[in-house]
């Protein structure tokens, strides 16, 4: 498991670059991660990110797109707009969480 410097802090990541330790993330880091993949975060983005963090701490697994939609209340279309292309992966990357495992 490599450790890299992000925003000046040493952070444990996996080979793909996703964070592996829940507590190492904070919102400042989240902003930096978004910048690295070319996304500017608005309040709408932050609402999603905060939901994902809260949900992960409850269930110890990253919410799927579907869960973000049904439980989190974010319409799927909106998620595609906020995090274009691969919303599920981008959301979890920026939130410092593992990629969601579920199929739906």
């Amino acid at each position, binding site marked *: 498991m490599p450790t890299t410097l992000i925003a000046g802090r*040493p952070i444990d990541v996996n080979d793909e670059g996703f964070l592996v330790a829940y507590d190492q993330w904070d919102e400042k880091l989240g902003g930096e991660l978004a910048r690295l993949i070319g996304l500017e975060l608005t309040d709408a983005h932050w609402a999603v990110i905060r939901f994902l963090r809260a949900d992960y701490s409850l269930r110890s697994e990253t919410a799927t797109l579907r869960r973000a939609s049904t439980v989190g209340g974010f319409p799927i279309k909106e998620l595609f707009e906020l995090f274009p292309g691969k919303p599920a992966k981008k959301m979890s990357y920026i939130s410092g969480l593992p990629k969601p495992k579920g199929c739906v």
Partner: protein
Amino acid sequence: MKRLVILGGGTAGTMIANKLRAALGKHELHITVVDRDDAHHYQPGYLFMPFGIYNTSDIVRSRHKFISDGVDLVLTEIDRVDPAYRVVHLADGRTLSYDVLVIATGVTPRPDATPGMQGKLWGEKVHEFYSLPGAQALTDAMRRFRGGRLVVHITEMPIKCPVAPMEFTFLADDWLRKHGIRERTEVVYVTPLDGAFTKPVASRELATALTDRQITLETDFAVESIDNDAAELVSFDGRRIGFDLLVTVPLNMGADYIARSELGDELNLVPCDQHTMVSLAHPEIYVLGDAGTLQTSKAGSVAHFAVDVFVHNFLAEYRGEPATHGFDGHANCFIESGNRKGMLLDFNYTTEPFTGNFPLPVVGPFKLLKETHLNHLGKLAFRWIYWNMLLPGRPIPMIPTNMSLAGKRVEKEVSAEATGLPSIGAPSSPPPPRPAAPAAKPKLEGRSAPARPKAAPLAKPKGAATPSQAKPKPAPSGGYVDRPGVDSTADPATVLPNPIIPKF
């Protein structure tokens, strides 16, 4: 070409011969079955003979008829096995070489092992039904019985079909009532075990089975001898039980050639692996049926399931593949309880008999650990299945080789007193109360998970309406608190200066 020699043409031996003959050609595998005579007995039938339910022709058939063509059937006694040279020496002087040997000669009753058992009362007042002549003699004795004390007795465990003495007791109770002499008869069940049933759930469910029928129970009785003058059973601790008719299960031992070959223990049982049935002393010798030391009941169903596993592994190894199946000690036994009812027990090495349904949850149709008519019919029907499906090696539908928990009410930490409800965690029992675990998970500052909006966000957009119209309230992100992140504790020398950015 491999040579397989099977000693014993009974249940296990016949099944193995037939299944392997069907799977491999004569040029691939040469199969020989050795037994002392051509009479295959349906041993579960012995129990019914004294009550006139079966007679000899119902339970004895020709061995030849049930062993596939293409299998050599050698009818002779066995002298000994020489594992070093992989040779079986037959009593008539012939020898059989083998690459793989299966010992399936079972166990037989040895009344001579208990002093006094074969004394002057033998065949008159002292009987056993673990052999055909014994069952036939007992049939006469039952017909002549006019009342008194009937004692059903087990000499020592293990015996084959461990429930048969109990079944005999139930059937006898029934039979005596029908013949109007139950009032005049005292029925006593004598066992070396510490109870009629040893497993907690079975003990609880059947606790009243004996008392309901006014059957007296005598436990922890280790018989020392039979006093033929006083007509009494004598135990090592001095207890004496008198009888007018004694139906005993003599000591069960494996065949004598096993002792001559120094392959067995003090009961002539061959020590073997619990899951592959391979002999612990010789890797090319396997032990199937009652002849080994499997820690489960000695029963036909066990032989059937163990043979399934053995055949699968044998064929895998023949093809050079790893043998992956393991026997789990699965036993599935119908037990007569009299009055045209029966019980069904289904268990294995690690699971005791539970209540529930078999083989399917809910629909069953057989009930476990309960007396039902259907179970009795199942037991009787089994004779047909034995001759027509089991022995020929045909698969029996719906019955898995390894025990399944489907349909069972699994009980954990059952106390023998059966007070209070044991914790149930079964697939088929009524749904267990929702565990409190999710509530105990660390919550964030008193916030609880938002209620799942049921289908509201998925309401179908009508016509030109945009899908976002049906959007529910925005997600509450309250409860999430931003805290400064903790730095990694990795050795600073290993930290890479640039982040790894995933490919999206």
